[in-house]
C-alpha cells in the first residue's frame, strides 16, 4: 500500500520534472534567437534541428528558419490546405499557389520595407524596374523570386535550363559524335543500349525515360517549343517573325506531332522505360541514381543537384554516368535557344512574409541579413577551413575530400544549411574574386569534374555546360518568360480554366500518345480532347498579356 503511494508520488515528480525540462528547453532556444517557420511548395530535405551552420547563422543574425517541404501532394493542394487551415508559417514560397495566397490577402506588402532603406541587401536584389514587375494588381509587391539572379559578373558554368541529356559514357563510347536532332540522339542511345544491356553493377539499361508527374511533366510536354528553336517561354511560343509578337501554341505544331511520333516509335521499339508514365518524382530520381538511364529531357535543377551528389558518393561519376546537355532541334542546322543567357525573372512566385508573422520588421531584417556576404558564404560555401580553404590570393577552393563530404546527404542535414528558397545570389562575390556559389567557381567546377567529364569537355572543346548546347546569344525579349503569367493564372478567368483543363488533358493523353499502338488514331483523339477544352481562351489571355508586356 505504502509502496504504491510512493510510486505514485515518484511518477508525479518525474512527470513534473519532464514537463519543466521540456518547457525549459524551449525557452533556452528561443531566448534571443527568433525561430521562424517556412513552407516551401517543393519537395526538399529537411535539415536537422541542431544543424551546425544554421546555429552559426542564428548566432550571427539572431534568427533561424524551420523549413517544411512539400510531401506527396501537389503544390496547389498544399497551399490550399494551408489557406483552409488559416494557419500560416512566417515565410512561404507557394510556387504555383502564390496567387491563391495573394487573393487571400495573407501576405505582407514589401513596399514600405523596401523603401525604408533599412534593408539595403534586400532592395539590392533587383533593379527598380525589376521590382516593378513583381507588383500585383493592387499595386503592391508581395514576394521576390530568389533564383537566377546574378551579382556582378555572370559566372555560369552549368546549363541551369532544360535540355535533352545524355550520359557521358555514351558519348565516349560513340567517339564523341555531333548530335543535333532527335533521330541522331535516339540512334546513339539505342546503339549503346544494344551493346550494353546492363550497367557495370548489373542494372538493366534504360535508354530513355521521362517524368510525367504533376507540374514536372514539362519533361515530356514542352520539348516542342525548344525543338522549333524558341526559348523557354514555358507555356507558349512567341513568334516574332511577322514583326508583331504573336502567341503560338506549341502543343499543336507539326513539330509537336513529329516529336511525339518519334517517342511513340521508340516506345514501341522498347527503348523507352515502360514505367515512364506512372513513376513519381522520387522513383524517377531513384532510377537516375542507379546510373542506368542513358538519357532524358529535363531541367538541370530538377535532377542534377541530387543526382550529381549520389553519383559522387557511389563512384558512378568515374564510370561516366554524369549527364551532358544537348541542344537538339527538329531538323538539322536550326538555331536553338535551350540555354537562357543572363537572368530569368520569374515574377510569378518567390519568398513571401505572411500576416501570421508576429514581427515582420525582424523577418525582413532576417531576409536582408541572409544576403550579407559573410552569411551568404556560410550558406553556400560552409565554414572556412572546414568546408573550404582560402589560398593566398583569397580564392576559395575545396579538397576532393571536402567535395565528397559536401555531397553526403547526412552531412548536408547535420552541418550544411543553405536555406535554398531564401534570397540568394549567383554570379560574383562582393570580394570580386570568388563566385557566390561553389558550383559557379570556375576552378572548383573544373577540379570537381570527374575524369570522363573532363575528357568529354576536351573532346568537344567546351569550357562549361552551355558550350555543349550552342544556343544563340541574344538579349531576352521584354516579355520573357511568358510562363510567369500562365503560372499565376487562376480558375477565375476562362483562360485560367482552359489552362487547368489543358493540363489535365495533356497529363492523360501525352503518355497515351507515346504508348499507343496506333499513333495517328490516338493523336487525332488527343487533338479532339484538347480542342474540346477551349485552348483558344487561354491563348487569347496570353496574347493580351504579351501585348501588354511588349508595349511597356
Amino acid at each position: 500500500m505504502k509502496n504504491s503511494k510512493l510510486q505514485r508520488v515518484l511518477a508525479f515528480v518525474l512527470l513534473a520534472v519532464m514537463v519543466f525540462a521540456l518547457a525549459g528547453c524551449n525557452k533556452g532556444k528561443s531566448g534571443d534567437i527568433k525561430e521562424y517557420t517556412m513552407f516551401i511548395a517543393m519537395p526538399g530535405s529537411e535539415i536537422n534541428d541542431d544543424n551546425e551552420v544554421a546555429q552559426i547563422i542564428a548566432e550571427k543574425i539572431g534568427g533561424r528558419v524551420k523549413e517544411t517541404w512539400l510531401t506527396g501532394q501537389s503544390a496547389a493542394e498544399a497551399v490550399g490546405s494551408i489557406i483552409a487551415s488559416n494557419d500560416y508559417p512566417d515565410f512561404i514560397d507557394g510556387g504555383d499557389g502564390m496567387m491563391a495566397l495573394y487573393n487571400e490577402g495573407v501576405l505582407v506588402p514589401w513596399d514600405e520595407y523596401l523603401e525604408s532603406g533599412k534593408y539595403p541587401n534586400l532592395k539590392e536584389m533587383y533593379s527598380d524596374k525589376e521590382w516593378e514587375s513583381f507588383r500585383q494588381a493592387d499595386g503592391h509587391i508581395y514576394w521576390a523570386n530568389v533564383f537566377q539572379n546574378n551579382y556582378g559578373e555572370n559566372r555560369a558554368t552549368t546549363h541551369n535550363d532544360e535540355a535533352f541529356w545524355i550520359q557521358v559514357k555514351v558519348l565516349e563510347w560513340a567517339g564523341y559524335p555531333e548530335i543535333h536532332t532527335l533521330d541522331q540522339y535516339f540512334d546513339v542511345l539505342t546503339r549503346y543500349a544494344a551493346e550494353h544491356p546492363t550497367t557495370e553493377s548489373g542494372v538493366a539499361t534504360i535508354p530513355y525515360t521521362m517524368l510525367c508527374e504533376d507540374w514536372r511533366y514539362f519533361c515530356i510536354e514542352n520539348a516542342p517549343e525548344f525543338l522549333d528553336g524558341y526559348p523557354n517561354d514555358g507555356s507558349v511560343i512567341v513568334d516574332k517573325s511577322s514583326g508583331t509578337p504573336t502567341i503560338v501554341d506549341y502543343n499543336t505544331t507539326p513539330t509537336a506531332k513529329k516529336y511525339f511520333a518519334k517517342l511513340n516509335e521508340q516506345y514501341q521499339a522498347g527503348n523507352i522505360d515502360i514505367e515512364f508514365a506512372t513513376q513519381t518524382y522520387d522513383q524517377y530520381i531513384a532510377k537516375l541514381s542507379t546510373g542506368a538511364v542513358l538519357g532524358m529531357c529535363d531541367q538541370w535543377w530538377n535532377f542534377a543537384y541530387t543526382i550529381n551528389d549520389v553519383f559522387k558518393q557511389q563512384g558512378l561519376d568515374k564510370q561516366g554516368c554524369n549527364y551532358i546537355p544537348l541542344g537538339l532541334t527538329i531538323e538539322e542546322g536550326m538555331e536553338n535557344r535551350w540555354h537562357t543567357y543572363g537572368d530569368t525573372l520569374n515574377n510569378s512566385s518567390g519568398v513571401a512574409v505572411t500576416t501570421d508573422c508576429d514581427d515582420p520588421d525582424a523577418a525582413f531584417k532576417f531576409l536582408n541579413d541572409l544576403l550579407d556576404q559573410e552569411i551568404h558564404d556560410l550558406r553556400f560555401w560552409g565554414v572556412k577551413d572546414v568546408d573550404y580553404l582560402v589560398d593566398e590570393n583569397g580564392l576559395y577552393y575545396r579538397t576532393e575530400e571536402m567535395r565528397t563530404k559536401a555531397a553526403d546527404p547526412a552531412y548536408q542535414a547535420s552541418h550544411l544549411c543553405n536555406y535554398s528558397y531564401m534570397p540568394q545570389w549567383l554570379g560574383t562575390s562582393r570580394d570580386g574574386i570568388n563566385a557566390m556559389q561553389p558550383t559557379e567557381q570556375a576552378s572548383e567546377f573544373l577540379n570537381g569534374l570527374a575524369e570522363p567529364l573532363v575528357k568529354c569537355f576536351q573532346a568537344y572543346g567546351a569550357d562549361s555546360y552551355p558550350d555543349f548546347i550552342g544556343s544563340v546569344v541574344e538579349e531576352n525579349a521584354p516579355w520573357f518568360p511568358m510562363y510567369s503569367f500562365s503560372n499565376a493564372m487562376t480558375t477565375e478567368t476562362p483562360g485560367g480554366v482552359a489552362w487547368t483543363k489543358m493540363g489535365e488533358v495533356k497529363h492523360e493523353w501525352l503518355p497515351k500518345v507515346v504508348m499507343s499502338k496506333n499513333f495517328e488514331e490516338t493523336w487525332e483523339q488527343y487533338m479532339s480532347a484538347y480542342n474540346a477544352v477551349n485552348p483558344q481562351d487561354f491563348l487569347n489571355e496570353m496574347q493580351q498579356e504579351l501585348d501588354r508586356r511588349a508595349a511597356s
Partner: protein
Amino acid sequence: MKAKRISWKEIKRQKFLVICTVCFVIYGIIFYYIPLGGWIMAFQNYKSRDGFFGSEFVGLAKFKFLFSDSTFLRVIRNTLAMGVLNLVSTFFMAILFAILLNEVRLAIGKKFVQTVSYLPHFLSWIIVTGILHDALSSSGIVNELLIKCGILSGPINFFAHKGYFWPIVAFANVWKETGWNAIVYLAAITSIDPSLYEAATIDGAGRWAKIKNITLPGIKPTIMILLIMNIGNVLNAGFEVQYLLGNGLVKSVADTIDIYTLTWGVGQNDYSLGTAAGIFKSVVAIILIVAANQFAKKSGESRLF
C-alpha cells in the same frame, strides 16, 4: 404493444445512460450538423476573404457547372463503380472468410490466422499503396513471377492500363479489410445456439449442410444490417487509394468524387464547387441508404429504421 410513457422517474433511473447519450448528441451536433452550415458555400461564389456574408450569391450556378463538366460525370461513374466493386468483394470475402475460419478445428491455428488476417487493417493506406507499388512495379515480385513462369515475355506496367486499376483497388481493399470485417461475422456465428448444430449432427447433416442451413441463416440479420450500412457508404469508394495509386494515364478511371472535390475545392481554391460536389455525394448516399432500407423492409428482413 403500447409505447411506454417517459417519466422523470424513468429518466432519473437511467441518469448515467442519459448523460452518455447527451454527450454523443452534442458531439453529433458539433461535428455533423454545425458544419452543414457550410453548405451555403455551394450557392455562393465563395471567397474566403469575403466570408459567408460577403460572398456573392449565385444560386445553382455551381451545380450547373458541375453537371455540365464531363469530368464530374466521369468521376461519379468511377466512384460508383469502385464503390460497388469494393462493397461486393470485401463483403463477400469477409463472410466467406468468417465461415471458413469458423470451420477450423484447431483453436491455436484459428486464433493465429485471425490475428494475422486483421493486422493489415491497421496499416495506413500510404503503406499499403507503397507495398502495391513495389509488388507491381516492372521489377517487382508479380512481374518477376509471371515472367519466370513463362506467362509473360516482358514486364507489364500494371498502373499504366485502365483495365487493371479497379481490380487493383478492389484487391487492395480486400487484402486490407477482409480479416477486420470478418470479426463481426465471427462474433455473430459464436452467438448461434450450439444445440442447433448438435441437433443437425444427429439428423446426419454434414459440414456443408450445417453451413447452409444453420450458420448462414444465423448470421443473416447481421449481414443485412451491415449491407444496408455499407450501401450508404458506396460513394465513399475511397480517396487515399485512388489518390496514391493514380497517375495521369489512368486518371479518367481513377479519380473519385473526393479527389475532384480536393482538386477544385482545395487545389483551385473553388470551395463552392467542392462543396457542391460534396452535397451531391451526400444526397446520393441518403437516397441509397433509404432505398436499401425500404428494400429490406419489403422483403421482410431486419433493417436499420
